[in-house]
Every structure is written in structure tokens, then in C-alpha cells.
């Protein structure tokens, strides 16, 4: 490798050293000038890192790049003249890039740039100007109104909630067979939009609705991120959505000419689940559209050849031995068969896809979130007559606890309430793009609109208690907020068990929702009970409610015995004695002793009377 000569700077191309530069700053400037002139590609980025004495040229793929307006002699190159031409569509954005007015910088070259947010911030040090100051946020944050008034932690949460929001995810949802899909009824475009809504297609794919929100408590039902919904609004379709789930199966072929067959299994099939399970299948073994279906009922009837070859050999009978391999609706699910398609795979086997649809009406435990990282779980659906109402008779859709605001620093939420209200009265969406107040007072602007329509300019309302009819002593801040319904719903998650399935090996309860499992009483929970000295409770949890078994232990040799059902006596397989003690132990301990025996160690159990 070449060695560094004094007064020279390493030159790297895509991370590989290619030589040295004598005057790095001059070199970098030359490359940039050439790029702006169009002599070299606009995709080339160059950065001089003085600290490491290195010049990096990057031309490879995978760099995130962002456009900036170039500044020369303290003036942006994008002049008013050019802006006019841009507006009249005489020129386009690409023209600006090609002519060195706007250039793309990557992360490394940004280190050499001093970017001004607005034209007023330009100093003699400034090299670039933001195309739009809102672009310092990403796309997701820019869908939120007034993000500059929210804390960064809430922005991070918003980015997560946006992914989870239900909406119109695709206009061809009817033709799609997604394994899971959620669709919101009557999705709305927000009352307070941002430029992100105009510059992309998301107005055609909205994922929420405008809720009338009152910042009020309701008998403690909306403590700690719980929300209270108006039942009348829910009944009229607020937050209502549909859940699609697709089940599919295939007629597989096996070596030896055997294959699966779609049909209603005969009662002789191995693993036959009973007549009721298959009652909704038609003759071809596949369910019909628009059938109501419950958990445990078959969607696709299928018989498969036996798992092990020898089972068929020697059977000799005319009838082929088969195994039931039907697809059954999972526990806790129900719905209507929305659509059934029958098609062929590339391997020329038959494929069935069945889409189940189920209605999800907001209920206690469902999750909602506004565009300010403010999430909440429905805790109560209040009948409209018990909800607070305004003098006009407006009943809020949602009651949000005022304690959610100050500690989370989401003042954008309050601004959106006000702006949403103003926009609803005005009948036109308002703009809430980041940093667009331009010195004007937003509160004043929205207050004026509210005043024009005869509302309090600060958004407060006199609310009347729905139960007593008496006005509340304090006025309540009321407005319109765009809420997303997130896809976490109790009906998909709820699971209970008191007794149920156990594992074969250990006789202990199964784990997980899909297996009707129990909740694990883990090591730390065990420690807590020991620490409390609750020895009988611990025994109950770990033995009586788990893998208790009764075993026979030989009094002579201390090994396990068994009961001989023919001779009707207890037998010890080792010493043939017949005096036994019946002992309660955990099945896991029996397994342990059995496995120790498998290691050629003979354990024996000594018992005290």
C-alpha cells in the first residue's frame, strides 16, 4: 500500500484508496463545480473530512440522499424568476437539478455543508438552503399536524402507530387474498392536513376518522390512557372495521403416487373430528361463500395418505387407509366466508383459498391513537344520553383525559383540536404542516374562525352533564381530532383457561394462545412465593394445578411399580414384590428418574412412613 507523503490527503473512491490529493479543499470544490455543471454525474458525492485527513468520493448505491438548494454569494440559486417559471410549468424539478440549482447530498457530504432552514438564516458561511423546512422531518412525522409542537419521543411513537392504523390499504382489497387485512369503514381525510397529504397519494388511502373530542374526565373511566367513546357514534359506524383472514390449503402429491384429496372425510379416516365439524362443507369438501362459521368448524375438508408407509402395507382391505387433514377455523375466531377461490399451483396441484370476513365494532379494550403519539384503549362505551353535551346538542365522540397532555408534551394535539374545529366549521381542511406559521399566531387565526361561527375563540365549550343536565362548573376544551384505529383488538387476543390440554412428555399445561395454553408460573414467580413462605400455595401452583401424578413405589427396592389389570395386582418389575406405597409426585420428576435410568444409573426412592 502506498504510504502517505507529508502534506497530502488520502483519496478514497467508494471506500477504496485510489491516491492522494495535495489541496483537498480545492479538489473537493472542483469536483462539486464539475457536478453542478453536469460534467460529471449528479449522483457523485464528495466529502472532505479534515479530522481524518481524508477525501471520500461516493458513487455507489444505497446512499440516502436529499435535495438542497445551492447558495452562491449569500443568495439561493433558485430565484423568483425560476420559481415563476416552475409555477407556470415552463420548467420542472429535474431542470433545476440538471442546471446546478438544486443538488442531492448524501450523509457524508452533508458534513461539509451548512444548511439554512429559511432564507433569513443565510449567512456568509451557508452553503445550502432547505427546499422545504418541513423536510427535516420524515414522511410519517410530516403526516402529523404541528409536529414542531410535539416532543421527539411522541414522534417515535407516532411512527409506530401509523404502521398499525386501519384504513383503506388498497383499493383492490376485494381481489386480494392477504393472510390478514384490516379495512376501516368510512375512512376520512383529516380535517387538518399537511403538505405530505398533497404530495403523495395518501389522501386516497386515509386511515382514520375525525372525532369530536372533549378534553374531559368521565367518572374515572378514562384514567391513565383509557378513552371513553360515545356508543351512539359507534353504532353509527365510528371506528368500525372489517377483518379479513385467508386460509388456504393444497392437494399435495407424495412420492409413490399418493396425493391429498379435497372431500368430506369419511368417519373411518384417522383423526376424524365428528360430524358437526364438517356440516358446513359442500359436497366437494369446500365451504360455500357467505356461510357463517364458528371456531372449530371445518373450512376445507381434506384427506391425506397416512404419515407412515407401513400402515398401508398388510391392511389388505379394499378401502384405502386415509388420515383427516382438514383445515379448521382457529380457536376464538368466527366470521363469514367472504370469498372462495379454487386454482392451481405451479406444480399442477389444486389450491383453495378462503377469505373469512368478520366485523370488528369498537369494544372495550380496542386501541385508538391520534396523530401525536397519544394512544388509548376504550374503557367504556357510554350511551348518548349519559354523555356530556354542548348547548347546540353536540355530543363528543371521544372523551380524552386532560392528564394525557402536560406530561407528554404533545401540544400539537391541542392545536389540532382547535384547528380541526375551525376547519369543520369552515368546511375546508386547514394546513398544519410543520413550521408554516410564518410568524402569524395560529391561535389567533383559528380563534377568529371560531368566533365567526359563534364559538369561543379558545375552543372552550360549556358542557352539560348528561346524567343530571347541570352544566359543568368549568368550561371544557372541545375540538376535532383525527384518530386512527390500530389493529390491536381484544377479540383477536382474548384467551382464558381454567383446565385444558397438557403436554404429552411432562403432563404440564400447554403454552400459547393457539394451543389453549395456560400462563406460565415462572421461576421468578416461584421465588416470590418462596420468599413469602407460602409453601402450600406454591405446592398447589406447581403440583396440584400442573403435573400431579400418583405412582406406585416398591417398598422393597424403591422403583416404580405398575398395576396389572389382568391379574389385578401391583407388580414391581425389578424385585417382583407386591408391597407398594402410593405416592403423589410431579410427573416431571418421574420423567427425570426415567431419563436417569436411561443413563444407566438406577435411582431408588426411600420413603418414610
Amino acid at each position: 500500500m502506498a504510504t502517505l507523503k507529508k502534506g497530502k490527503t488520502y483519496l478514497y473512491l467508494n471506500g477504496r484508496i485510489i491516491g492522494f490529493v495535495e489541496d483537498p479543499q480545492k479538489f473537493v470544490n472542483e469536483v462539486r463545480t464539475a457536478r453542478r455543471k453536469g460534467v460529471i454525474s449528479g449522483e457523485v458525492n464528495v466529502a472532505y473530512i479534515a479530522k481524518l485527513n481524508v477525501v471520500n468520493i461516493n458513487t455507489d448505491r444505497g446512499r440516502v440522499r436529499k435535495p438542497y438548494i445551492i447558495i452562491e454569494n449569500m443568495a439561493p440559486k433558485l430565484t423568483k424568476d425560476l420559481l415563476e417559471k416552475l409555477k407556470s410549468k415552463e420548467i420542472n424539478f429535474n431542470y433545476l437539478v440538471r442546471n446546478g440549482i438544486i443538488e442531492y447530498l448524501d450523509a457524508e457530504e452533508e458534513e461539509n455543508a451548512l444548511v439554512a432552514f429559511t432564507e433569513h438564516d443565510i449567512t456568509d458561511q451557508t452553503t445550502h438552503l432547505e427546499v422545504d423546512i418541513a423536510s427535516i422531518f420524515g414522511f410519517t412525522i410530516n403526516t402529523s399536524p404541528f409536529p414542531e409542537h410535539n416532543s421527539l419521543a411522541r414522534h417515535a411513537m407516532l411512527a409506530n402507530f401509523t404502521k398499525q392504523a386501519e384504513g383503506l390499504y388498497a383499493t383492490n382489497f376485494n381481489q386480494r387474498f392477504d393472510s390478514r387485512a384490516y379495512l376501516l369503514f368510512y375512512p376520512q381525510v383529516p380535517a387538518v392536513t399537511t403538505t405530505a397529504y398533497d404530495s403523495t397519494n395518501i389522501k386516497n388511502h386515509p386511515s382514520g376518522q375525525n372525532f369530536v373530542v372533549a378534553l374531559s374526565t368521565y367518572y374515572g373511566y378514562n384514567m391513565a390512557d383509557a378513552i371513553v367513546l360515545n356508543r351512539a357514534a359507534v353504532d353509527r359506524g365510528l371506528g368500525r372495521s372489517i377483518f379479513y383472514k385467508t386460509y388456504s390449503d393444497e392437494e399435495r402429491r407424495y412420492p409413490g403416487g399418493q396425493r391429498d384429496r379435497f372431500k368430506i372425510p369419511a368417519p373411518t379416516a384417522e383423526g376424524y373430528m365428528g360430524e358437526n365439524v364438517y356440516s358446513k362443507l359442500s359436497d366437494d369438501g369446500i365451504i360455500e361463500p357467505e356461510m357463517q362459521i364458528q371456531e372449530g368448524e371445518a373450512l376445507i375438508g381434506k384427506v391425506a395418505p397416512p404419515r407412515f408407509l407401513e400402515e398401508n402395507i398388510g391392511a389388505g382391505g379394499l378401502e384405502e387407509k386415509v388420515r383427516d387433514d382438514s383445515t379448521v377455523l382457529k380457536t376464538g375466531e368466527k366470521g363469514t366466508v367472504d370469498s372462495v377461490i379454487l386454482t392451481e399451483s405451479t406444480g399442477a396441484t389444486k389450491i383453495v383459498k378462503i377469505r373469512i370476513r368478520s366485523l370488528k365494532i369498537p369494544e372495550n379494550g380496542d386501541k385508538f391513537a391520534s396523530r401525536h403519539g397519544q394512544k388509548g384503549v376504550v374503557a367504556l362505551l357510554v350511551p348518548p344520553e349519559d354523555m356530556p353535551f354542548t348547548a347546540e346538542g353536540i355530543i363528543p365522540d371521544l372523551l380524552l383525559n386532560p392528564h394525557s397532555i402536560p406530561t407528554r408534551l404533545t401540544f400539537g394535539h391541542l392545536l389540532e383540536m382547535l384547528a380541526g374545529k375551525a376547519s369543520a366549521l369552515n368546511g375546508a381542511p386547514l394546513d398544519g404542516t410543520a413550521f408554516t406559521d410564518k410568524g402569524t399566531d395560529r391561535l389567533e387565526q383559528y380563534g377568529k374562525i371560531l368566533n365567526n361561527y359563534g364559538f369561543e375563540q379558545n375552543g372552550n365549550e360549556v358542557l352539560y352533564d348528561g346524567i343530571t343536565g347541570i352544566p359543568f362548573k368549568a368550561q371544557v376544551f372541545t375540538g376535532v381530532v383525527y384518530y386512527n384505529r390500530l389493529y390491536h383488538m381484544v377479540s383477536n387476543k382474548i384467551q382464558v383457561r381454567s383446565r385444558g390440554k397438557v403436554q404429552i412428555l411432562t403432563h404440564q399445561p400447554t403454552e400459547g394462545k393457539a394451543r389453549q395454553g395456560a400462563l406460565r408460573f415462572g421461576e421468578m414467580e416461584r421465588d416470590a412465593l418462596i420468599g413469602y413462605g407460602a409453601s402450600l400455595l406454591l405446592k398447589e401452583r406447581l403440583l396440584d394445578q400442573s403435573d400431579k401424578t400418583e405412582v406406585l413405589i416398591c417398598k422393597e427396592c424403591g422403583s416404580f411399580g405398575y398395576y396389572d389389570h389382568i391379574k389385578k395386582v401391583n407388580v414391581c418389575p425389578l424385585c417382583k414384590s407386591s408391597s407398594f406405597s402410593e405416592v403423589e409426585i410431579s410427573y416431571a420428576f418421574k420423567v427425570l428418574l426415567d431419563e436417569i435410568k436411561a443413563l444407566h444409573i438406577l435411582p431408588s426412592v426411600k420413603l418414610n412412613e
Partner: protein
Amino acid sequence: MAKTLDKDKEKYMVQYGEPVGMIAAQSVGEPGTQMILRSFHLAGIESTISTSGLPRIVELVDAKKKPATPVTYIYLNKSISKSFDKADEMQKKINEVVMSNITRRTIENFTKGTIRFLFNRQELELEGLSPKQVATRLEKHLEVDAKAEDEKSVTVHMHTKNLKLIRATTVKILKSVISGIEGAGKVMIRKDEKTDEFYLVAAGSNMEGIINVDGIDKSRITTNDIFSVYRLFGVEAARNALAMELKKTLDEQKISVNQRHLYLISDAMTASGTPKGVGRHGLSGEKNSVFARAAYEETVKHLIHAAAYGEVDPMKGVTENILVGKQIPIGTGSVRLTIKKEDMAKIKSKKD
């Protein structure tokens, strides 16, 4: 007064069957989880950066033979402790200087049979040594013919041309202690602002060596090396030192744990007469029950040992009773009948 205290004594005593060990473990373990998250260092303020936080707790609980950063606090006799000169003198006496610390270069001349040690003169000056002193020290302790021929080196004449012997001697000399006490490490002088006293801080833990130096207050010397305390003062002192070190480490992170728990841990660790860790080579590895040991670590080893020696599990502990599904002998389960029912009847009949 004594009576009331005596009466109340029982009220404050731990009840029979209380799982104190589990409670101690939970009481230390829970705040310990927070410690991982807040493991910051106060760099630079204390020049002896000692291990702290979770690594230090682990080190103590595992009863490591030597701490990663040993420190000894040496206080001087009250009569001399306020004089800096005396403290400086003591520092020179104790501060461990190893030959390799002050040597810049070693030149072995195999044809002449000499080894020449060129000193780093700054280091030499800092330690207050001269080549002559080094030479006499080497002659005295290693019985070699050492001569200080100029102001920057010492030459050792081997009077032999045996290569192996010369090389071995070089290594030996480089490792040898020129001044101070072996294992004392670097010693620094500190001033206690409250009492105006000077004291010494040594980055080593040879308390056995240091304590015999004249002018040291033998009652106040402390170290963070538990085994050094154990060797010099015995188990009881080691127990105290252990509890104190645990407390100090937790206090540094502003975690408050009741000292009873720390004393219980220290008690358990020192109960056998020597400090033992809680891990598989210590307390857990010495449990009575085969199952309890097998359930912790090295399952197969314990099972095979049990099989080979015909061990019997007395089923007296917690783990093994949970394993088989018996009521554990702790808390409400610690109550047992000591008299059989039939025997009870006999006692009654006697009274009648």
C-alpha cells in the same frame, strides 16, 4: 429499660421458617437490574479508578481471590499523620518499584557475560532512587555482582557465559522489587480535608507486608481485597469487610439495600471458615441435595457422582422438594410434627 428492650427483642426477631436467603437475594437482585442500565464512571476525579457497579458485586459475591483493582488505604500514626514530609517518607518506604518500571533498555552481552540496565532517568528521579542504591539493593537481595558505573545505568557482571543463566537472571532482575514493599503497588499521598491528616492509598493489597512498616496505624488500615483481610485478621474480619464492600458498591450507585441482607450474604459466604463464592464452586456446589446441585449447573457431573458413590438425597431443601412436588420446608411448610399421634396418647394417659 433493659426489660422493655428484652421484651421487644422478640418482636424484631425474624420468625422461624422465614426464607431470609430468598428475601436477601431478591432485595439485592432487584436494584441490581437498575445498576446495569446506569453504569457510568466518574473518570479522572479519583485517580485510582476501581471497578464498581455490577462487575464489582459479581467479583465480591464470587469471592475472587484477587480483586481486579486492589486498593489499600494506609493511615499513619497520629503523631506523624499531619506532616507531609513524614507522609512522603512513608510513601517512599512503601511504594513498590519494580526494576522493569524504571528500566528503559536492557543490554545483554553474552561474550562478556554482563547485563546492562539503562534507566529511564525521569522515573528514577521520581522514585528518589540513584543507580548506586539500585546496585546495592540488587547485590543484597539477588546476590549478584551489580555495579553502578555511571549515572544512568547499572551493570551486572555474571562471571559466566552460560546463555541460559544470563537470560534467566535478566528476567529475574527485571521482575525484582527495587524499593518499597512487594505487592503494595503504586502508592499515592492523599489528604483528608476534614481532619487535616495525610494518608496513603496503595494500588495493591499486600496488607501483610504493609502493616509491619513502622509508623503505620495498624488499627485503621483497610483494603478492598477480602482475602487479604482474611489472611491477616481472620474470617470475622473478612465477613465484615465483605459486607462493607458490598454496601460501598451499592451506595456508590445510590442504591439502598438494608444491610441485614448484605450481612446475611456475607455470613453465608464465610460460615465455613473461609470466604466462599455463591456460585457452582462455592455455596451452590456444596449443597446437601443431589437434585438441587444437578438442577443448578453441571447436571451430569453430579448425577454420575451420586451414582458412583451411592449418594442419598435427604430432601431437606427447597429446590429438590419443588422438583418432586412436596411441600417445601420453608415458611408455612416448616412446621413438622415431632411426636407421633400414638405417642401423644401415651403422654396424656400418664397425666391422668
